[in-house]
């Protein structure tokens, strides 16, 4: 039942809105990543990163820009809205920081900043926060012989710990399980996907499964039945892989999708997975051409991959990211043409003249009241070794009151 619905939804999509992310005419800024509030629905916001180091927020259904977050000094590698507090947005960057933003407070200063230290203080190529908004994880680039998965407790700025034994090259993807707050997936250009269970103390024990794509991981995530029990991966060579996360069964491995579509409807690259609600056991793959056509592929039969819908008239260049919202049945896509496109059921498309360059004068009222950090009830204790190669961290308890030397 559910299967038929998602497929039908995708087939009904038409272009509704386009929104340009940058005003620069000379050099186009790419839209590199999209995140959406987990609550979904018609009032929800969508965030898009631009290669000019800014994050822009848009209202989903009108693509009207609501805020521009400036502050990162280098490429932004990942964005994610928080779960329980959907106004907050987390971002990781090559400028070695993870930041949490509250656009209601300020769009030029983050409300929280997280950094690593010592040898682990390097470019962050990926980042995310877990389902209970308690733990932040970021993956670094490889520096000399080491590469790190860094962990922070959101309530503290200092690094909680790191893993450094499970990858051999840049960690390009870090994705927490959308519901189970103890599992995190990391993907690297060493070709491996690792799944960690953070209930365990040490890195060795936490490492649950390792999958070898025999290529380099470009995009990874969770999908599948029973609340997303599968991990998926798209490599830089556009091969597609799906495995079950704990029993490690191979679900799907397709290496030749591009080769199957070389005619009129061409596939030059894979974008991302499109899936319905967590109970859905079917998913679709979005693939595109460098001229901006986007095709939604049905992978049910691995021998005969089929196109269920082609989305045209939207992008004019490579599509880099997307987000599907089950509630509104809309798809938002972002590309190297600097555009965001909204595809909704039954829309008949817009004329090319209608491409709005929407720039929002930041009318967010300066709300000076600081958002109080909610008291989070500790559900689990995530304990793992602190690994510091250079200096040991001594926690000095600041003592209240003065010490009086009694003579």
């Amino acid at each position, binding site marked *: 039942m559910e299967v038929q619905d998602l497929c039908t939804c995708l087939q009904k999509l038409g272009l509704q809105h386009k929104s340009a992310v940058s005003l620069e005419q000379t050099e186009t800024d790419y839209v590199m990543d999209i995140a959406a509030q987990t609550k979904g629905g018609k009032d929800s916001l969508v965030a898009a990163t631009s290669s000019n180091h800014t994050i822009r927020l848009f209202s989903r259904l009108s693509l009207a820009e609501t805020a521009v977050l400036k502050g990162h000094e280098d490429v932004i590698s990942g964005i994610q809205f928080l779960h329980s507090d959907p106004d907050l947005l987390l971002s990781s960057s090559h400028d070695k920081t993870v930041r949490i933003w509250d656009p209601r407070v300020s769009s030029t200063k983050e409300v929280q900043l997280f950094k690593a230290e010592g040898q682990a203080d390097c470019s962050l190529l990926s980042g995310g926060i877990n389902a209970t908004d308690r733990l932040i994880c970021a993956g670094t680039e490889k520096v000399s012989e080491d590469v790190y998965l860094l962990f922070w407790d959101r309530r503290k700025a200092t690094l909680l710990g790191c893993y450094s034994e499970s*990858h051999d090259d840049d960690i390009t993807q870090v994705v927490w399980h959308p519901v189970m707050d103890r599992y995190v997936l990391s993907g690297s250009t060493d070709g491996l996907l690792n799944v960690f269970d953070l209930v365990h103390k040490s890195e060795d024990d936490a490492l649950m499964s390792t999958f070898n794509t025999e290529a380099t991981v470009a995009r990874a995530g969770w999908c599948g039945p029973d609340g997303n029990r599968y991990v998926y991966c798209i490599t830089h060579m556009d091969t597609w892989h799906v495995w079950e996360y704990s029993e490690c069964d191979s679900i799907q491995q397709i290496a030749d999708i591009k080769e199957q579509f070389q005619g009129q409807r061409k596939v030059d690259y894979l974008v991302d997975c499109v899936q319905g609600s967590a109970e859905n056991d079917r998913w679709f793959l979005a693939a595109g051409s460098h001229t901006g056509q986007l095709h939604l592929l049905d992978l049910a039969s691995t021998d005969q991959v089929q196109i269920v819908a082609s989305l045209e008239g939207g992008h004019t260049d490579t599509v880099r990211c997307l987000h599907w919202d089950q509630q509104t049945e809309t798809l938002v896509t972002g590309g190297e043409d600097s555009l965001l496109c909204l595809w909704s059921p039954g829309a008949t498309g817009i004329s090319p003249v209608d491409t709005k360059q929407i720039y929002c004068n930041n009318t967010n009222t300066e709300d000076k009241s600081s958002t109080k950090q909610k008291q989070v009830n500790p559900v689990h204790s995530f304990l793992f070794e602190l690994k510091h190669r250079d200096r040991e961290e001594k926690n000095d308890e600041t003592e209240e009151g003065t010490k009086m030397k009694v003579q």
Partner: protein
Amino acid sequence: MSKLNRDGLRESIDAVLKHSTDKKRKFTESVELQISLKNYDPQKDKRFAGTVKLRHTPKPKMKVCILGDQVHCDQAKANDIPHMSADDLKKLNKDKKLVKKLAKKYDAFLASESLIKTIPRLLGPGLAKAGKFPSPIGHNEAIVGKVDDVRATIKFQMKKVLCISTCVGHVNMTADELYSNITMSINFLVSLLKKNWQNVRALYIKSTMGPVQRIF
């Protein structure tokens, strides 16, 4: 391949081979392909990386070890290929030093599908850290073919500099074999680039100790 001068390539290959025979080294020199890119921004554009299987093995001396189930270990024994069974792995007792030693001993690993799931539990992350996590072999696959595949596969990755180098052969191969490997590599690399030949600034081949020969 229309952009590449075939005769020019053959001449360059001959030059590389001649140079290696003129000045014979004490080891078998590798032949590398170097590609330098243009119109590509590593900050914005998608990473350029992948693996490709060549027709003629560029690294025949690559040491591969099979981590196998009963069937695969028997095949390995029959073909004189080093192997270890699940029990052998258990004997390592997840000792980091032993796992590291094992990783150093071989260039690559292959593991039966049934065994590969247990690697993190049996050995910990040691093989992954060494960049040698095994590739899977299906239960019904013959290992000899897979071992040859592993030896014939090259990996390339663009980091921050617009230049990549990969090993595509060695000086004891014939000119035809080198020609085949080089054209195959170039075709694959160019097909992965967004603007194909418009992204290629130059191509070179060279032997390990020899001078560079420009081919594009």
